């Protein structure tokens, strides 16, 4: 009897664990696919369908190190734009990216897409993270 209860609890825990995991995965997929649409509408013209950028005019989105080092600032970049020199993929860029005042949820989705495409793999960017980051914009 006791053994059965222990086994049942163990199975239950495994099931809960597995379903939690897949909830995260489902959320990731939801963010990622919605984010690809936001990307097409708001980013792709300049940054390219493969995140390749444009020569020395528009930086690529393929520099994983840059994205990781600036993770907390990415939401602010999207919302407020960037001006001034930045070093991406071993090159300096000094043009302006215009502000794009889209909803925080859309920012979370598009950042999930960008940071998990083009050779990047940084996991889900949640709405909570984006809201926290936006409160700390410089």
């Amino acid at each position, binding site marked *: 009897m006791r053994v059965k209860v222990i086994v049942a609890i163990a199975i239950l825990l495994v099931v809960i664990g597995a379903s939690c995991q897949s909830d995260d995965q489902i959320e990731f997929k939801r963010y990622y696919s919605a984010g690809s649409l936001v990307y097409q509408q708001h980013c*792709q*013209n*300049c940054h*390219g369908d493969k995140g390749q950028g*444009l*020569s*020395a*005019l*528009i930086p690529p989105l393929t520099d994983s190190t840059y994205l990781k080092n600036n993770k907390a600032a990415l939401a602010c970049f999207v919302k407020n734009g960037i001006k001034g020199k930045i070093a991406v993929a071993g090159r300096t860029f000094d*043009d*302006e990216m*215009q502000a794009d005042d889209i909803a925080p949820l859309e920012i979370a989705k598009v950042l999930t897409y960008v940071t998990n495409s083009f050779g990047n793999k940084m996991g889900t960017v949640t709405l909570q993270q984006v809201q926290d980051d936006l409160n700390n914009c410089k």
Partner: protein
Amino acid sequence: MRKLWIGVVILTLFNACKSNTKTALPILGYKTPVTKTVNGKTVTDTEYATIPPFKFVNQYADTITQKNLDGKIYVADFFFTTCPSICPVMHRNMLNVYKEFKGDDNFRIISHTIDPKYDTVPVLKRYADKLGIAGNTWWLLHGEKGDTYKIAKSYLQSVSEKNPKGEYIHDGFFILIDKQKRLRGTYEGTDPAEVTKLIADIKTLKAEPDQIVAK
């Protein structure tokens, strides 16, 4: 025997048509019948629309007129350097055209800025450098707004002043012009497949007999 002859005739005609469509591009633009008197006889001929004379300045501050394009096949488009929408896609695609033909002195690309107030010659030079283009294959042309808007019409393009939202609305077409300054093709500059077709069409056009002869 008779049937055989008919067969031969039909086959010949069929092949004649086929080879025609393969080796020549259509001539676009408005056609006007022109009646001339040649050797005392009245002859009516079709005249195709051509690009009228113009005068602009390129990114090196050199004056560029229609004469600089004599004997050259060229592609034209309209853009501005701060364009946040379609221009980066257009010029990402145009770079492929540039790379394909940059060694050919009988070929040019001209990009007219529709925002001459911001896109001064130094701004155009800086844009060219950052885009990674050098030499004389690709000219970025600056001119009076009125002149640019007027010449756009001869390329069948629509460009206009900023709308109330502060945006410029313009067509994203690449226009192919032959050595006789006639329109030979229009291509959606934002579509990589159309730009691949443009590159193929430029090769076809270069091989046309009256393009080889023209100077």
